[in-house]
């Protein structure tokens, strides 16, 4: 599987340098978490990687092709993106929502048998098969999150990018979703890139953590190497401790630096 590579990404928004030259290569088969304080440029970086925003300078390569040069449908078949706090505008059934993930495959004739199989498979993977006929407006936050992940999986993409996919979920559902992302990366070899707010969850679920602050890359590597007290002090202005908890690593925020 090909790599997703960002080189020299720069984005200015309203006179503010949101990304100030980001270089990063993402490997398939692992979960990469992008963390950083509010306004660090996490969502902007993810939008650039998903080709939803064209950087002012630099480019994103999917394999050896610039992602901006791919036809939108061809790109959408290989890379799925889940926006932050995704809206679901209409009260449609969960299965129809998941079916929207087949949009880049559908021809003039509508959903084919192959599309239907892909939808079933995606719903099974995200464990939302029993929600198929439920109206999405009646789902709980955790169920919605899983249905949206199933939507992203319906196109069987090589890359799965999600902006704050665990925000607003209770701890149990956070664990479920985190497990799902890890399985997709480790068992199916997909490249998974997430922005996350919770540092402990990032340390626990990610194979690699990229720390952003003020549009720059502060640290990049396995959680234990990326989330050091020095990095966290520089990024967030807090004193923090990387500890070994019972179920995995734990980032304890001690106080303001």
């Amino acid at each position, binding site marked *: 599987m090909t790599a997703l590579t960002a080189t020299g990404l720069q984005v200015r928004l309203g006179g503010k340098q949101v990304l100030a030259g980001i270089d990063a290569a993402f490997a398939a088969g692992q979960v990469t978490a992008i963390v950083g304080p509010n306004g660090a440029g996490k969502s902007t970086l993810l939008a650039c990687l998903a080709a939803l925003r064209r950087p002012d300078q630099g480019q994103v390569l999917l394999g050896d092709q610039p992602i901006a040069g791919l036809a939108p449908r061809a790109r959408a078949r290989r890379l799925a993106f889940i926006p932050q706090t995704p809206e679901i505008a209409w009260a449609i059934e969960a299965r*129809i929502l998941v079916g929207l993930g087949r949009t880049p495959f559908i021809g003039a004739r509508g959903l084919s048998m192959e599309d239907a199989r892909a939808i079933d498979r995606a719903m099974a993977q995200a464990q939302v098969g029993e929600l198929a006929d439920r109206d999405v407006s009646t789902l709980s936050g955790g169920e919605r999150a899983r249905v949206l992940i199933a939507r992203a999986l319906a196109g069987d993409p090589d890359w799965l990018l999600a902006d704050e996919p665990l925000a607003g979920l209770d701890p149990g559902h956070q664990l479920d979703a985190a497990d799902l992302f890890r399985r997709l990366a480790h068992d199916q070899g997909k490249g998974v890139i997430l922005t996350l707010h919770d540092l402990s969850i990032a340390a626990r679920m990610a194979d690699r953590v990229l720390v952003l602050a003020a549009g720059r890359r502060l640290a990049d590597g396995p959680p234990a190497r990326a989330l050091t007290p020095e990095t966290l002090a520089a990024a967030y202005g807090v004193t923090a401790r990387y500890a070994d908890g019972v179920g995995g690593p734990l980032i304890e925020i001690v106080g303001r630096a």
Partner: protein
Amino acid sequence: MTRLRPPAAIAILLALIAALALVSLAAGKVWAPFSAWTDHADPRWPIIFDLRLPRTVLGVLVGAALGLSGAAMQGYTRNPLADPGALGVSSLAALGAVLTLYLGAGAQAPWVIAAAAMAGALAAVLLLMALAGNASSIVTFLLAGVVLQTMAGAGVALALSLAPNPWAVNEIVNWLMGSLADRSVDEVKLAAPLVIGGCALMLLTGRALDALTLGEAGARSLGVDMTRTRWFLAIGVALAAGASVAVTGVIGFVGLIVPHLLRPIVGARPGALLIPSALGGAVLVLAADIAVRLTPAAGEVKLGVAMAALGGPFFFGLLMCMRRRIA
């Protein structure tokens, strides 16, 4: 509620249109039984085929144009209150047409009225898209609609107050109220290609509207070309709604009511709602036009007035139901 599969819903709506079209040909001040339909010598023959046939065909065309425009605009804005009437598209189209009436240009060539109405509708759609931007807040859209309606209303009032003579005023007022009465084959010939073209453009956006259920970022990430979608919709609505306003005046609320009534029956997926909404719009306008014809009154109640009397409370009720979501 058990849902109908779209083909079943479409078949039922088509049957309703056929039945209402037959009633529309037969009903009115003069009742025309089927025996009169085949006899050229019957005095009722010209009533059926010269007066009521164009009226019926226009009812179907205008209803389909307004119903489909409403469904497409609701899908694009993800706002169940969007409608060419409520968002000021019809008002600006009417302003365009009124200006040509005021200047007297419409008298020489009917296509001038149509072109002006479509230009007004296109301006309204583009202004709406610019005013509301990418944010799909319902409040922003409704406020943008209020602004457009107010501006169009002021323009019409200005044209009325500066009108050169009482006949011009009369003509403008009469036309503004929206009606299918006394339309001829000429109006059908003018409106049909424009309405059909506009509807075709809107129908092409079905998949994009489906994907927009996930928001603009979600749709773009699925490979949807938003620029193409926007232009198809803007031009489609301008052609269909603009041409409708040009031949019948303002008939409001069709695009608001129809998708809302159909959503529980065929489901809320915007793309699946397009064709049923076009057919449902035709049903509603045909039924309303038959009703105004049969209403006992000195003159005929204008269709636009009747639809407003029906649609106003409906819109209000919808707003009451949505209060929490809007606030």
